[in-house]
């Protein structure tokens, strides 16, 4: 397809305002200011744009949840935390086309009548935070931001707020806490951020890629956008392909292509002439798919039907040399490190999974381990925790146990017992009647 979000990739000096204007930049912003907030929201609603940050929530609907009669300020927050393993698309947009993000943020802020917007970017992205700050300064100098933007009477400030190393701050309510200057502890919902968000005011949080779609929708119209992809799964999507492929990278494709097309055609197939074994379709929080499931459609609904999720579009590919027990262990290490610690099922569960998987990988597996893992995961999903990180570790780990159980059994068959004094603490290695799990 014709590149939309990545149209600037490969263009000389593409980050500059001059290049962006030459490509028709800020036309959407001008048009939006003339349309008024409600018409802008309606256009985005009609485009059926769904959030690219992970959950796939309809963007226009999210905007319309902001109370119309709210007397105080509202805020727009752009989520540039990009911390889901396997995801590196927002960085690509910022690297080549930061003004696209600034314009998207501006239009979204206008649609919800927010005069202040924050771009929350992960602390490691020092270079990309600077790129955004430079773009914002350039836009402000040209009168696209600041007081009375282009004579419209609308004021808008955009500030870059840097994180400081915490995956959980990608979760929207943890992110808001982090902007407020606190530890990134997710909040219980409801209230949802659209009603009580940052500084207690209505707040809309959208991903970088989501907001980058907005100027194009305003300029070219909702019908153009909705014609790309599949019904209810519209528009271009950035797929980040990493792992054992010949050409890893970010590919812009219509939603609804299959993972086979993404992996085989675009990413050049499995490297070294090997065979595909498994892949995460949307970051490591999405249940794993096997080589047999590679014809699954890469869109929100097809992934949900296959028991997984499109998530952030981070496709992590493993060839047939990969040991899935080790993959599960690596995943457990990630979440055990990143759990914020507020909820017992997530904090302890991710740690226990890590302990068990470490022990399995070290060659001391026990017969009960696969079922114990599944039970721990069951206890940390489906609404047992404050935020979805509880599910984010439980679902991929249980999917690996379920789909590759033979590899676990194989390891256990040849395992040696642990020296007694090194036995890790496993508070409930056996069933516990009454726990319901």
């Amino acid at each position: 397809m014709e590149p939309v979000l990545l149209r600037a990739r490969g263009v000389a000096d593409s980050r500059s305002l001059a290049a962006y204007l030459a490509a028709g930049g800020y036309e959407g912003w001008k048009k939006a200011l003339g349309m008024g907030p409600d018409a802008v929201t309606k256009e985005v609603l009609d485009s059926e744009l769904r959030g690219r940050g992970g959950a796939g929530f309809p963007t226009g609907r999210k905007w319309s949840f902001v109370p119309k009669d709210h007397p105080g300020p509202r805020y727009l927050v752009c989520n540039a935390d990009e911390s889901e393993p396997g995801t590196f698309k927002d960085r690509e947009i910022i690297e080549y086309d930061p003004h696209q993000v600034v314009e998207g943020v501006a239009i979204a802020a206008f649609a919800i009548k927010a005069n202040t917007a924050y771009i929350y970017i992960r602390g490691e992205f020092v270079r990309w935070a600077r790129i955004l700050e430079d773009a914002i300064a350039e836009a402000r100098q040209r009168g696209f931001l600041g007081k009375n933007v282009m004579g419209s009477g609308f004021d808008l400030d955009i500030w870059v707020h840097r994180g400081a190393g915490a995956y959980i701050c990608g979760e929207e309510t943890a992110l808001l806490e982090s902007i407020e200057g606190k530890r990134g502890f997710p909040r219980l919902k409801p209230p949802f951020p659209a009603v009580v968000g940052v500084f207690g005011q209505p707040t809309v949080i959208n991903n970088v890629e989501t907001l980058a779609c907005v100027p194009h929708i305003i300029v070219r119209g909702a019908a153009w956008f909705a014609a790309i992809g599949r019904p209810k799964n519209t528009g271009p999507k950035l797929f980040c392909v990493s792992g054992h492929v010949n050409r890893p990278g970010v590919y812009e494709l219509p939603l609804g292509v299959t993972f086979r097309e993404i992996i085989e055609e675009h990413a050049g197939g499995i490297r070294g002439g090997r065979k595909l074994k498994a892949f995460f379709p949307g970051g490591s929080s999405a249940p794993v798919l096997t080589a047999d499931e590679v014809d699954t459609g890469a869109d929100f609904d097809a992934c949900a039907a296959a028991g997984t999720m499109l998530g952030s579009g981070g496709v992590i590919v493993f060839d047939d040399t990969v040991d899935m027990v080790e993959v599960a262990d690596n995943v457990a290490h990630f979440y055990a490190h990143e759990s914020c610690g507020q909820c017992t099922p997530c904090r302890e569960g991710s740690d226990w999974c890590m302990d068990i998987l470490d022990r399995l990988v070290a060659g001391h597996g026990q017969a009960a381990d696969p079922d114990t893992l599944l039970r721990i995961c069951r206890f940390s999903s489906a609404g047992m925790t404050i935020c979805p990180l509880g599910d984010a570790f439980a679902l991929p780990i249980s999917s690996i146990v379920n789909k590759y159980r033979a590899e676990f059994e194989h390891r256990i068959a040849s395992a040696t017992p642990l020296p007694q004094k090194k036995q890790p603490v496993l508070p409930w290695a056996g069933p516990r009647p009454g726990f319901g799990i």
Partner: protein
Amino acid sequence: MSTRPIVAVPPEALRIVTFDAAMEASIAELLPRYPTRRAAVLPVLWLCQERFGWISPGVVRAVAARLGESPAFVEGVVSFYTMYQTAPPARYVLQVCTTLSCAWCGGRELVAHLKERLGISFGEKTPDGMFQLVGVQCLGACGTAPVVQINDDYYENLDVAKLDAILDELAGRS
């Protein structure tokens, strides 16, 4: 949950630091961006890390005093986020990604090599204070795995030879 060891600091690190005029000017620039002073905690800590090299207990007290928070609150924030240094860092902090795409595309070899070349494990510094090795989670650059972040800069598409060349170059800088 990420936890960090408690490190003993020399007595002078406990003394509250003072912010010079340039620092005060930077803070004054930050404050109007937010409706609360508390919201400036993270950016002010970043300024301090740039200025003082690390977040000593004396820096925590100064930030708390400047923003009207308790030192305990600021300490809680510092200890939650992994990127604030709570001990003086080495000159070059090697942050090696240990997550999936990097781990299976050469990252594990890089880690083994770094540990051997530098003679240290994760969390440690070389005795000359040049290098510090940190195992980190996905850096958001998985398409160019394996990735190492050295101080603020990303080094991507690495292998042992390329990393060696980079370390040689850094070690040779005056």
